[in-house]
């Protein structure tokens, strides 16, 4: 196939597959009434920002809650996972391989099982409707992944590098902070990006570990919004667009890390 024909077909494929996203954007910019006409408008003309005003008014706090939970999850995941990965990849304790295997297994535990028992545990600890509770719950998905991705990267760091630092009198902690972490920057960013994306998108824990009386992440906000009988699609789609923004931003600024993470958990290149 000639190059430009192929580009044309490629553009067509992307247009078809991304049409639902255009349709979301389209509905988010039209007055609610216009969305209920017999034939839909394919262009949001005249456009209105009413949906976004409503989204920010009713879901703005939920977006902020999600941001806090996602940020907290990134911090907790990296603080726990980075030293662990250093230990597994470079210090190599006998029990390490068993631990790695355990991580691979626990990664496959369905979230609903975690939610079921965390609900009981958090009830006792007073962590229901709590930011720390959601951060710790979300970390159950992100910590094992982060350790595995970081370890896979750190295994490739020559041992001579950290041994040289040790010869120069640096302790294990010093070696970790000033050599291993900077060298592993890319893997740390990948693990962080994925922790953020997961926690931002989390619905199961947000749904089960909150009661609707306290904090409410935006995923639950959208779910309740959609569930209203008088579905106001303009406001819902505007909220959906706002909730999609972090993913879109990361795709633009951190695409390399996203692809690395998608393949990193599965195949080593």
């Amino acid at each position: 196939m000639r190059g430009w024909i192929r580009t044309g077909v490629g553009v067509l494929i992307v247009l078809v597959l991304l049409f639902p996203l255009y349709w979301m954007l389209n509905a988010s910019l039209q007055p609610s009434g216009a969305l209920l006409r017999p034939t839909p408008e394919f262009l949001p003309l005249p456009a209105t920002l009413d949906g976004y005003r409503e989204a920010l008014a009713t879901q703005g706090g939920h977006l902020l809650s999600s941001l806090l939970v996602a940020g907290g999850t990134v911090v907790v995941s990296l603080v726990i996972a980075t030293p662990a990965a250093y230990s597994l990849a470079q210090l190599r304790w006998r029990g390490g391989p068993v631990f790695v295997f355990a991580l691979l297994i626990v990664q496959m535990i369905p979230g609903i099982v975690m939610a079921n028992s965390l609900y009981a545990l958090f009830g006792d600890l007073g962590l229901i409707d709590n930011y720390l509770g959601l951060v710790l719950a979300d970390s159950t998905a992100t910590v094992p992944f982060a350790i595995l991705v970081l370890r896979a990267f750190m295994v490739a760091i020559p041992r001579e590098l950290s041994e040289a630092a040790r010869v120069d009198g640096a302790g294990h902690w010093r070696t970790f902070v000033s050599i291993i972490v900077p060298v592993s920057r890319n893997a740390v960013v990948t693990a962080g990006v994925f922790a953020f994306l997961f926690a931002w998108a989390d619905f199961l824990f947000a749904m089960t570990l909150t009661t609707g009386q306290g904090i409410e992440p935006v995923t639950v906000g959208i779910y309740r919004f959609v569930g209203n009988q008088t579905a106001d699609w303009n406001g819902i789609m505007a909220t959906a667009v706002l909730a999609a923004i972090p993913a879109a931003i990361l795709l633009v600024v951190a695409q390399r890390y996203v692809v690395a993470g998608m393949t990193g958990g599965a195949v080593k290149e």
Partner: protein
Amino acid sequence: MSRRAAAIAFLLPALLYVLVFFGYPLVYNLLMSLRDFSVRSFYTGQAPFVGVANYVAALGNPVFARAALNTVWFTVGSIVFQFGIGLALAVFFNGRFLGSATLRALLLLPWLLPLVVSGAVWRWIFDQDHGVLNTALRLVGLPAIPWLTDTGWALPAVILTNIWIGIPFNLVLLHGGLRAIPGSLYEAAALDGAGGWQRFRSITWPLLRPVTGIVLMLGLVYTIKVFDVIMVITGGGPANATQTLTTFSYSLSFHDFAFGQGAAIGNVLILVSTVFGFVYLRSARESLT
């Protein structure tokens, strides 16, 4: 500090985390499934031991059979099409042409969005009176379909949504696998006069096998535990037509407050996932160690 002590010290936070946040819930879930655990239990601390009664009740519930079958259909339907379309796109975008990298990157978007967002968007698309899908059907003279209110159409509708969500994942992993195949093989085959289909069958497909196995197994493990998409689009309905094992477990625990039965279904899910998980680990062992 000796290396061994340092190794353990650096690993300690993670060890503790895994023990508390995986070990405890797993054991707790097992104990919960053997007890009559209700809302009252949370206040009184009383949950009488009932043996396998929860399993008998949950597995004997007619919804269980429905949910299990739906989970199979959902998983098989999703994976067959995600993989097929993902592979076709991976082959297409593997060639170098103007904009191929940018277009491929754009296709990642559906996978990166929160599932709740994708679910909401598709629910709007499936809307019976105002959804664009039925508008298109009417345009070509076909009758509108009650996508989400008809027991026959709801499952295909959520499967369609999940296929859309999963294509990018398959595309990226398979594309990575394709790039690892040396181009010289194709050149040699072309010199021998092999056509496009023949090159795919005798070079691409066999050499892609290891990646194929990993993609399918990961897809299986992810898809079996589907929750978000179904909750947002149909909530498991109408009349349990889209109930899966996860949504069934959720509704037992958090809707009926029969936590013991919810935990029992959860343990069934663990069993299924670990069986596939072990198959995956076996097939991926070489690339992981």
